[in-house]
């Protein structure tokens, strides 16, 4: 599988990332790094322990990383979640669908990246 194919499978914008990062190898290198990135784990754990400010930061980091790598679906769902979590004091029911979406996008994305590895 090529990086381009991987991006297509994720639904991410390969042309955009190439426009900014310039080299296919570089994109590959950093996309693969996502397999070791702990932001998503941190997000899940923070939500579980109801630490909303930590959850916000994790979502925010996830969003930033995806933005830099033009991983559009997760960038979008993480952005929405981050906005909902910004300044949130407590967990609330309406966060659930947003969290679900992030989980779905993240899982799908990681599955695709694993095939690249």
């Amino acid at each position: 599988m090529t990086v381009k194919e991987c991006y297509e499978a994720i639904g991410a914008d390969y042309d955009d990332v190439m426009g900014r990062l310039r080299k296919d190898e570089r994109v590959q290198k950093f996309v693969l790094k996502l397999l070791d990135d702990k932001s998503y784990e941190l997000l899940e754990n923070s939500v579980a322990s109801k630490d909303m400010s930590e959850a916000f930061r994790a979502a925010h980091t996830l969003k930033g990383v995806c933005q830099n790598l033009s991983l559009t679906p997760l960038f979008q769902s993480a952005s929405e979640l981050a906005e909902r979590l910004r300044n949130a004091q407590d967990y609330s029911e309406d966060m659930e669908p947003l969290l679900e979406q992030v989980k779905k996008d993240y899982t799908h994305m990681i599955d695709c990246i694993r095939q690249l590895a």
Partner: protein
Amino acid sequence: MSRNKNVFEKKKILIVDDSEINRALLSDMLSNEYEIIEAENGLEASAILHEQEQEISLMLLDIMMPVMDGFETLEVMNKNDWIKDIPVIMISAETVPAYIDRAYELGVQDYINRPFDEQTVRRRVVNTILLFSKQKELTHMVTNQIMEKENDNKLMIEILSNIVEFRNGESGLHVLHIRTLTEFFLKWLIEQGEYGLSQEDIYLICNASALHDIGKISIPTEVLNKPGRFTDEEYEIMKGHALEGARLLQDIPLRENEPLIQMGYQICRWHHERYDGRGYPDRLKGDEIPIAAQVVALADVYDALTSKRVYKAAYSHEKAVEMILNGECGVFNPVLMNCLRETSADLKEELARSEGQNFQEEALDAVEQMIESGEVEVSDRTFKLLEHERVKYKFFAELSQEIQFEYTVTPEMLILSEWGAKYLNMPETFLNPKTEAFATSVFAEGDFLHLLEKLENSTPDDPVIEEKYLLNINGHERWSKVIARSMWSSWEPPEFSGAIGKIVDIHDELEKMNHLQVMAAHDSLTGLLNHKTAKTQIEAILSRDTEKKYVLIVFDLDHFKQANDTYGHLFGDEVLKYVADIMKRNTRSFDIICRMGGDEFLLFMPYKDEMEPLVKRIFHLLCSQYKEFPISVSMGVADAKECGGDYDALFHMADKALYKVKRGGRNNYCFYKNELTGGDVQ
């Protein structure tokens, strides 16, 4: 390490971002041309900046981070003035205008939005670094130019006024005195809030004061230096120097608007006016006379009085002040008279102090003042000096083989010297040091906090503290001395900002000292206390115990000389040891046993109801046999109750009783009880 940047040396960029991927991404884009240092959050970044501030050319900073976020980091950088030396580019996905505004307010140079692309990042980094070093170079140039200009100005004025004074037969000190006096009076006026003067005014007026007599250059020498009294005609000529000086300054082509020229003009023209309107040349009255000229006039009169002249001796400070206040030397502004009256004592001191100060120093002061008021920034020269100091410090720190440390309050950090960190097998930098290994495992519980408290409670005037702690150095308990100096902010009131210090191992020294103390207190042969120590201990007991139910026994061995003579000194020593052992075995820890010297011993012990049974028991214990030598003793006893708390009196009583026994044929004991009574011998 040097600020003289080697062309082949890569500039350093500090990347601060909590996401490892983001840091790596930026690093990847920049690492070809730059050396990259990474930090996970603001606190880590602060630690790096603290260490390597001078070496970092640029910082890329994320906003949202745990522990210390981007804004907090910028605040720390502002507080420590790092923001002036290190350009910061913010990188963030935040596009809220309030965020961006706040970042610029806190001094960031540029702002890059996520997602960033390689070109933008590289271009902005290059531009920012270039722009910033250009700026620095310029301020450096400006600083040096100001410095040179200041020096030239002063020098020219000095030369000029020296020429005038030389012609005038004066010492050349006159101009310096006038400057000191003028500055002194003006400072008082500022303190009182009179005449709305500023520090800059002082500086200008003081410089211009040197010009007050330049008009004398056009006075014929025979008039100028006439030893006797002036004729009316000569006096008129002499008076011309005021207007002449003003004219000279006014005629300097194209310079009539220079503040120094304008100020000099006022001073030259009007420094002989009188407050009552009877001076010259314009007969100005009261505050029609510019305050600068009034002050210089007062300084001029004072210095004339206190200096030796062809026609007069020098008056003392006190006499001169008195004459001026009495109106014997003209009429002055009552405010200035007040000033002279109030500050007379200080003035005398100030004049004594200012002797010998040189102009270079003042020029430096002036530049320093400008730096403080933010007009110029610290020049590269200063950086080089700092760098030089740092190299020097590092060298000596290594040489000294001591654990040295530096503690800062914001951000809270502790930095160990390279040698110290290696020695303790610890990192050099601790964030939140109170909970880290250095504070918790090297120091015993609470000791590090105790040290910090001591430092915080010290003052800028008395900042050095010394404390002893039992430290754990690599698993060994070592008594150590911590010598530290607290550091304070320069603003008022001073704020505790941290400390520097070192740890000195005093364990061996202390043990040796303890050992010496033990040695000094004891008799080396028997291990009993010596008399001096026993006396000190007994005196302590006598002073704190009011009941004083103690008995003092002094005794010596009968015919001990014979033991020495017959069996030799070594045998004599054995006898003494034997006697000492009897006493050690039969006394309690709170009894005081002492060998006073030779075969004389002393015992001091508490008793319950009666002294005699106790004394009797000891006496019989001592009467024994060591090898061939039969031991008997003569013993004098005194009751502590009767000495009134005075050891010497007590000892004297026991000694007297002992003497009685000896005269009575030895081998007995005797109590001192006003009159001497003997015990029965069995």
